[in-house]
């Protein structure tokens, strides 16, 4: 099977995700980008799992998906909290503490 294509897809997705995290100012978009990265990982895992013909890859992927859900939940909660207190979800604004 075409392992490499999957890997490349994964890598590309991952790269996009990274770019998003580092470049987008909107908190929510950052969260999305992280999801993107996680899915890149899932693709890799599943692909490898199939290549090796073992189930663990998919199991791992399932775990990742589950955890990702939880993470995003917490993430949104925090962003919401910030929005309530600061009226902004622009990650650039949050630099009360530095140095």
């Amino acid at each position, binding site marked *: 099977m075409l392992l490499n294509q999957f890997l490349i897809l994964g890598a590309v997705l991952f790269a996009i995700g990274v770019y998003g*995290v*580092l470049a987008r100012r909107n908190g929510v978009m950052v969260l999305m980008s992280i999801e993107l990265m996680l899915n890149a990982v899932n693709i890799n895992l599943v692909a490898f799992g199939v290549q090796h013909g073992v189930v663990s890859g998919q199991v791992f992927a399932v775990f990742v998906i589950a955890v990702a859900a939880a993470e995003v939940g917490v993430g949104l909660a925090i962003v919401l909290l910030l929005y309530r207190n600061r009226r902004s979800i622009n*990650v*650039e604004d949050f*630099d009360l503490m*530095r*140095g």
Partner: protein
Amino acid sequence: MWMLENAFIIPLIPAISFVVILLFGKRFIGPDRVHVVGITALGLVWVLSALAAFQWTQRVEHPPPDAVVQMASHADDHADDHADDHADDHADDHADDHVVVSENNSGDAHGGGHSSPLIRPVISTFSQWWSNGGIEFSVGTLVDGLTVLLLIVVASISLLVHIYSTEYVKDDRRYVHYYAFLSLFTAAMLFFVMAQNIVQLIVGWELVGVCSFVLIGHWWEEKPNTDAALKAFLTNRVGDIGLLVGIIVLWGTFQTFDIDAINTLIAADPGAHHLALLVAACCLMAAVASKSGQFPLHTWLPDAMAGPTPVSALIHAATMVVAGVYMIARLYPVFYEGLSVGTSSINLMAFIGGFTALIGAALAFAQWDIKKVLAYSTVSQLGYMVMALGVGAWTAAIFHLFTHAFFKACLFLGAGSVSHAAHHTFDMRKMGGLKKDMPHTYRTFVISSLALAGIFPFAGFWSKDEILLGSLVGQKNSYPLMLIFGCVVAVMTAAYMTRVIWYTFHGEFRGEGHPHESPKMMTTPLWILAGMAVIAGVFNLPGPVLEPFGLEGLAHRIQTYVEPSVYLSGLGLSHPDPSLTMALVGLALAVSGIVVTYLYYWRRVGLHGMTERNRYAKNGYTFLENKYYLDHLYNDVIVETVKRPIANWANRVNQNVLDRVVDRAGETARDTGRWIYKWIDQGAIDGSVNAAARGADSSGEGLRAIQSGKIQNYGQLLFGSAAVLAIVFVIVV
């Protein structure tokens, strides 16, 4: 022989009296009565020393079998009773040395001109003093003729000075401390002269130095006194480098500190370790120069006159300053071999001695302070002794040491008595005509002066004559240069003493107030010393003088009793036969000196005012008055390095090349310390440390920039460094 074996008691007594006076002086005894303690102690010391001297003569007259070195067996005893002084491995070859010694002795007993058997010194050692590297070093006493001679001298002078002082420093602000330290000094000096090993020599040497420091600075409220005290101590310290190194070299060569052993080893095999001995001797010469005021380290001695006059008499005329001479005599083999006295017609010691004698005498002319005149005269006489030792006339030197002690002490005490009368001034320009007011002082002063000048039949005549004789005949070949020095000095000595007497006792009284004779407590010691100045000569009369009276037996007593032939025989010292001509020449020179000066001052003939008229003479005079600018040299170079001018000499700065050079040197030297401290220590070393600290601090500040507070910068940093690491590792690994 009990006294000789237990000689340690002698220094112990004044030591105890020191402690007693210092601790109980003020409270229990009472400031006005402390001298009783001191005098009693010294009286005791004197008796014991006399006893020791007597017992020594007995030992020489009827030597107990174990005292004579002839057959090898004694070598073994000796080896045994010294096994604890130096490493055992030495004991053996030590024994062999003795065999050699005895052979030598039988060899040149006749050539050496003395048939007396070689009497071993009485050596008694006490518990191990210190130990190191498994070797145990004992403290002990070495008593022989030289020791007892010094014992007598120190005890007598010190006793007389104690008595004299009761009047002289009466109601002084520190009467108690004064007597305490007189006692301590006496103790240290006695300890020094009976030292059994060279470490003890150092100890005594330094202790007397400290006492002189304390007593010179006795009136420490006035800065000049303390300056003088410091100058004395520091100059001696400079010499002590030599002492330290020299003794270390001796240790390195012979692996023992034991004086007896060292002397015997050298005497046994004169040729060996010549280089080491040369180094050692030169180093020790430096010490001698500093302690015994030899050129060029003599400048402290005149300043030391800042101390109370009795102190000057005791320490800076009779006893401490001869410590150097004593050390040469004590370790004579070292110097003899090291400086190859026997084989060359000139050597360091003789030259330094002669030269010192010369300049000392010359400087004595330029002084107006009576004590300074005497001080320079002391310098010159010490030079005489060193010169005598340098030419190999051991006995003559010691003989002169003996006689000189008495008449010079007498002169100092006389000067003290004068100033006591003339309102505590020592400036001869404020004296004059004291002859009638203080007859006793006058007479004793004149007698001692004659003795010093070397007029027949006073003590000085005999000893000086022997020195001149020694340098005439010398060892193996004569010392013409030294002979010339000696003669010139003889003339000058006579001359400057006459000058002193003129200015002090004759002419009109130039001071204010009514001078009066000093009380008994001061004149009595003067008379005693004057008496000695007359008769001290008899102790070493040459045979011919005595033949008419059929007393040949009494000839050369000092040579017989004092000379440590057991050490010297190996060196093959000779004793020149007395020569009438030499004696007459010496006498003539002295007389001529007196006569010329007499004419100059009393009869007003001669080149009066020459120094005013003649430019050269004037320069010469200034040159003398400035003591050859040596003081500048020391003050600037050496003392300024030590940060503060020790003598207040600003008024004597001359526009003189030497001086300007010296000034610069001084400036530079003085700031060295400060410079090093400022730049090297605080600047370079400490600076770098602090700089490191600052660097860390500021880099910390710089790094804080990373912590921008912006999440995404964090992210970039995170992923960026991740990427970098990844690339690096992927490539490298």
